[in-house]
């Protein structure tokens, strides 16, 4: 990895890609609910003002207006914080977007605990679960700036509704340049034979660090970046656990309803193995710096290493 790639937030990639899409395609429109400076839709707003609609603090209205624009042939990108996009406007997303299969892209920033000091009211730990439950909804959680850029660019041509989750913190690059696309959404970043680590978002980098540490302890871990949580790449997940015989999952989300459950569903149906889930343990967040929160809620490479060792030991 070249030195000049300083950590960047995935929400910044959303802003850059949205602007690029706006320049490329006349049917791209963007909406925000008074958070354009945080979600980064402000970049689009500044250069394509005639196709940008800031609806004010009214997320439900935003989602339904986006539905109306999509019915009329536009490709709307609607952004706000993940907690409001999925919780506040759930019914509008369910009835107005998911059920009619409209190509609205819900691009939610500030996913997870790393919102930080704003505390639990703004920390979304259940958004992936909520969106995963909706028929027709594709759920995407990119792992770095470049993968986010690729996901947003690729979304333009994707049929049906999509949920793309980005984050607030500056995080390291995993991909040196934007990949051509997400493919099936499961990218084996490191091959291994003893245990599979499935991770998404900011936890992918930590999974690679954990694999490095496990290697020092003679444990060969396979690391898979799951960028498309739904529909999950069943073949890649099943092939990995068939080879390793056990797995851990890691996500900045509740252990209920998110990546961990998605992987367990695949395992239970196709190849039952022992699986440990690293995530937020069915509790709400709290205020603190992002790193303090990740430590307190046990979302670090150290905790992941420990869980992997436990799972491996108990599955022998």
């Amino acid at each position, binding site marked *: 990895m070249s030195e000049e790639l300083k950590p960047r937030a995935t929400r910044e990639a959303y802003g850059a890609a949205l602007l690029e899409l706006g320049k490329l395609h006349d049917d791209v429109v963007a909406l925000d609910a008074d958070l354009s400076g945080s979600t980064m839709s402000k970049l689009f707003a500044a250069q394509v003002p005639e196709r940008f*609609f800031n609806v004010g603090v009214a997320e*439900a209205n935003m989602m339904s207006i986006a*539905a*109306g624009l999509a019915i*009329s042939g536009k490709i709307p990108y609607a952004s706000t914080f993940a907690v409001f996009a999925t919780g506040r406007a759930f019914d509008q997303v369910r009835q*107005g977007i998911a059920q*009619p299969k409209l190509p609205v892209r819900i691009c939610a920033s500030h996913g997870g605990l790393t919102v930080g000091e704003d505390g639990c009211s703004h920390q979304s730990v259940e958004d992936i679960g909520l969106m995963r439950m909706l028929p027709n909804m594709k759920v995407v959680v990119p792992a770095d700036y470049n993968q986010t850029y690729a996901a947003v660019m690729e979304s333009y041509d994707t049929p049906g509704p999509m949920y793309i989750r980005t984050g607030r913190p500056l995080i390291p690059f995993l991909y040196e340049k934007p990949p051509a696309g997400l493919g099936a959404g499961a990218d084996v970043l490191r091959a291994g034979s003893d245990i599979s680590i499935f991770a998404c978002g900011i936890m992918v980098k930590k999974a690679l660090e954990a694999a490095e540490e496990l290697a020092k302890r003679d444990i060969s871990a396979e690391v898979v970046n799951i960028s498309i949580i739904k529909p999950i790449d069943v073949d890649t997940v099943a092939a990995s656990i068939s080879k390793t015989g056990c797995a851990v999952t890691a996500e900045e989300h509740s252990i209920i309803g998110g990546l961990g459950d998605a992987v367990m569903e695949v395992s239970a149906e196709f190849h039952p193995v022992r699986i440990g889930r690293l995530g937020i343990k069915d509790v709400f967040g709290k205020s603190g710096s992002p790193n303090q929160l990740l430590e307190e809620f046990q979302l670090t490479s150290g905790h992941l290493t420990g869980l992997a060792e436990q799972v491996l030991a108990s599955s022998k």
Partner: protein
Amino acid sequence: MVSEAGSGHPGGSLSSADIVTALYFHVLNHRPQEPKWPERDRFILSKGHCAPILYAALARSGYFPVEELEGLRKIDCSLQGHPDMNKTTGVEISSGSLGQGLSISIGIALAMRLDKQPGHVFTLTGDGESQEGEIWEAAMAAAHYKLDHLTVIVDCNGLQIDGFTKDIMNVEPLTDKYEAFGWTARSIDGHDFKEIIEALEWSRTVEGPVAIVARTVKGKGVSFMENQAGWHGKAPTDEQEAQAMVELKEQEKTLASEAQGA
């Protein structure tokens, strides 16, 4: 139709019947043989439970055969209990969860403006539905975006599932509320065709969004249903249906002779 289905919402369908009839057979610029004609006016049913009146208007306009109305709410039939835009020809949006249709209409109107399409959006809401907060988020936005080609018609029948709106949660004064939100608003008799058509045509000429508060009678035209909250979401029995049809046929005759005399 509702009787055949064994469930559904006759009360609000009847209070909206004259408005919907005026729209589909006099006001809307539409092509039933070309349902997606880009220049068409849109009718958006926000109070989705009144699907029966929408389906009847669509069938009688020629969007699909009238015989299909008998399939309302039945498995393997396209006519869902609440409108589904992907299942029924001519249905512009899926609705049923109240309060969303006006916001969706704003999205449609914004897209029309971007595409320089000439159509006008007519959206039917209910007075009970106006208790939903999203209606007022939309009211604020439509005025802010100065949507000249958006008209909301509030079917104000004064009743909701649990009783009179004034007792459950008062929504009045609706014209004042819309005016305060920056709309042009007026009140009409929602069962007077002349008044309905005149107001709808007038709304096309007004700058900014227009709200037409239509005073209606829930269950209109069927003596035992009129002004009865109990008929919000209940199907009539065969005997009740027969009586209702006799009463409605009588009124049809009166209307026809009035029209001839006029």
